[in-house]
C-alpha cells in the first residue's frame, strides 16, 4: 500500500498495483523515495478521490482484456468523464502532474469533444481567453474558410 496526501492534508491509501499507473509515483517508488506518505501539493482531496477511483478501476489493463471486461471499462470511462467542466480541468491537471498517460488522454478527449462544436465566443468564455484580434483580422480568417463558421452543429452555449 502507498499513502498519498492531498494539499488539504487528507491521506489516502492506494494499492501499489494501482498507483504505479502514475509514471511519477512509479519512478518515486523505484528510486526508493516513497517510504512514507507522498505529498501531492498540487492536488486537492476532491480531485485525488476521482483520480484514485480511476486508478483502482484500471488496475491491470491486460487482465480486463482477457476476461472480456473491456466493455465494462469503456462504460466506466464514459461515466467517469461525465463531470463538470472545471472539475475536468482539475483532473487533467492532476493526470498531467502525476503523469498518468491513459487518464490524460481520456480527459483531454472529453474536453476536446465538449469544445469541438462550440462557437468562437463560447470557446473564449470556456477557456477564459481574451480576444486580441482586430475585427479586420477576424473577418479575414472567416473569409478564408467561411465553411468552418457555418453549420447547424455550431453551439454558442457555455457549459
Amino acid at each position: 500500500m502507498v499513502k498519498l496526501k492531498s494539499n488539504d492534508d487528507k491521506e489516502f491509501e492506494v494499492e501499489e498495483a494501482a498507483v504505479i499507473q502514475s509514471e511519477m509515483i512509479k519512478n518515486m517508488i523505484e528510486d526508493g523515495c516513497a517510504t512514507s506518505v507522498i505529498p501531492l501539493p498540487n492536488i486537492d482531496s476532491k480531485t485525488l478521490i476521482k483520480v484514485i477511483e480511476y486508478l483502482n478501476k484500471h488496475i491491470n489493463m491486460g487482465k480486463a482484456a482477457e476476461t472480456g471486461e473491456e466493455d465494462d471499462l469503456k462504460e466506466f470511462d464514459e461515466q467517469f468523464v461525465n463531470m463538470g467542466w472545471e472539475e475536468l480541468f482539475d483532473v487533467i491537471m492532476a493526470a498531467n502532474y502525476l503523469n498518468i498517460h491513459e487518464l490524460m488522454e481520456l480527459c483531454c478527449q472529453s474536453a476536446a469533444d465538449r469544445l469541438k462544436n462550440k462557437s468562437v465566443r463560447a470557446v473564449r468564455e470556456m477557456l477564459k481567453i481574451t480576444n486580441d484580434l482586430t475585427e479586420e483580422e477576424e473577418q479575414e480568417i472567416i473569409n478564408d474558410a467561411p465553411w468552418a463558421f457555418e453549420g447547424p452543429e455550431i453551439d454558442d452555449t457555455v457549459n
Partner: protein
Amino acid sequence: MCLPQDILVEILSRVPAKSLVRFRCVSKWFNCLTSDVQFQDKHLKISCSSRDLESKRVAAKVGVDVMLSCSLSSVYNNKIAAWRLPIERKISSCSKISSMVLLCPPVNGLVCVTLGTCLHPFDNVHLWNPTINELRRLANSSVPLDLLSKLQQPYGEPIYGLGHDSASDDYVVVRVITRLLGYSMPRVEVYSLKKDSWRLLTQPFPYPYIWKHMYFNCHFMNSRFHWMAYTPNKQDHLLILSLNLSDYEYKEIPQPNYQKASPPRDYFINIAVLDGQLCFCIHYFGRSLDLWTMKDYGVQQSWMMMLSIPLHDFVDTPIQLHVHADFFPLYLFENGDVLLLQLRRKEYYQKKQDIMVYKKDQKAFEDTTTLGYQPLRLGPTSIYYTDTLISPNRYLTPTASRIVKYLNWVSRDSLIHHLS
C-alpha cells in the same frame, strides 16, 4: 481558471480540424498554434487514428471551379450537408479559374490539382488543403517543353501520384510521363515539397503502359506508390508495380488468386487503398464487385476477399456496361459497410448517385443524394480526404518556431514549478 498552454495543446490536438479553423478567431495564440507545423503533425497523427466520420469527407467537383464537400457521417446518415470550398480566394491574379483537374487521391488532407492552363502543360500543378484553404503552386517542371511535342491527350497525359515520405518528412508528387520525345519507355518525374523542385529519375518506368482506370491510377500507401502496368500484347496480364520512396526501387506486388472469368476481359481490375491496406477490386460486369485486401503488405497468402458486392439488382442495361461504368471503393466503415464511387460515362445504370453506401448486412445499396455529377470528361470529379491542418506551405513559412520554443519554455517552467 486558466489552463497552461501545454495542456491546452494536448486538448486542442484532439479537436477536429474544421473546428480549429473556426477557433483561429479565438485569439492570436490560437491562430498561431494552428499554423505551427509541429502542432499540425501532432494533430494529423491523432486524427489519422480516429474513426470520427465528421472529419472524413467526400468532395465533388460540380462546376469548373466549384467543389462541394460533405462529411462521411452526413453521407452515411443520408443527411448530406455540403459546403462550398472557396479555392478561388487563393488564386492571386485571375479571379476565375478556367479549369481544375483533380490529379490523384489526396494524402494527409492535401489535394493535388491543376488549375488553369499554362504554356508548359506541366506547370500548373498545385497542392491544396481544402480544410484550411491553403494553396501552393508547385515549381516548374524539369522537362523541357520541346520534349513534350508528342504529348497529346488522352494517352499522353501524365499519371500523377501524391505521397508522404515519413523518413524525411517530405511530401512527394510523382508523374509518369509516357511518349516523351526521345524516350521509348515512360519517364518518372518526382517533386519534393521540401526542395520545391522536380527531377527526372534516371531509371525509366519499367513497363511501357500503365493501366488507366476511370478513377485515379496511382495509389499511395506504406511509403510506396502503386500502379497497374502491362506490356503490349499482354493486356490480360496486368501486374501491380510499386515504387518505394526510400530507395526509388520498383517492385512487383503479388496479386490475389482471383477468379478469371470467361470469356476473358469480362471484368475490370483495379487497385485502391482501403482502411490502410492495399485493395484489389474486380468488377465482373453486371455480376459482382469483389474487393480483396492484403493484410500483410507484400505477402501473397495474406490476400483475403473482404467483400463481394452483388450487382444483379443494380444493373439496368447489361450490354456493354463495362465501357461506361465502374466502381471505386472510397472508405471502409467500422461495421464493414463500404462507401463506393460510381463512375459513369453515360446514364446506363439505373441509379443516379455518384457516391453510394453498400450495407454489408442488408446486402444492399443505400440511396445517397448526389453531390452533383459530371461526366468523366475531365478525369475524376470526386475525392475522399481527411480534414487536416497540414499546410502545403509548411516548408515556406518560418515554422512558427517561436511558439514551439515558447511552449517548451512553458512546459519546462511548469515542471520546475511542480518540482519545487
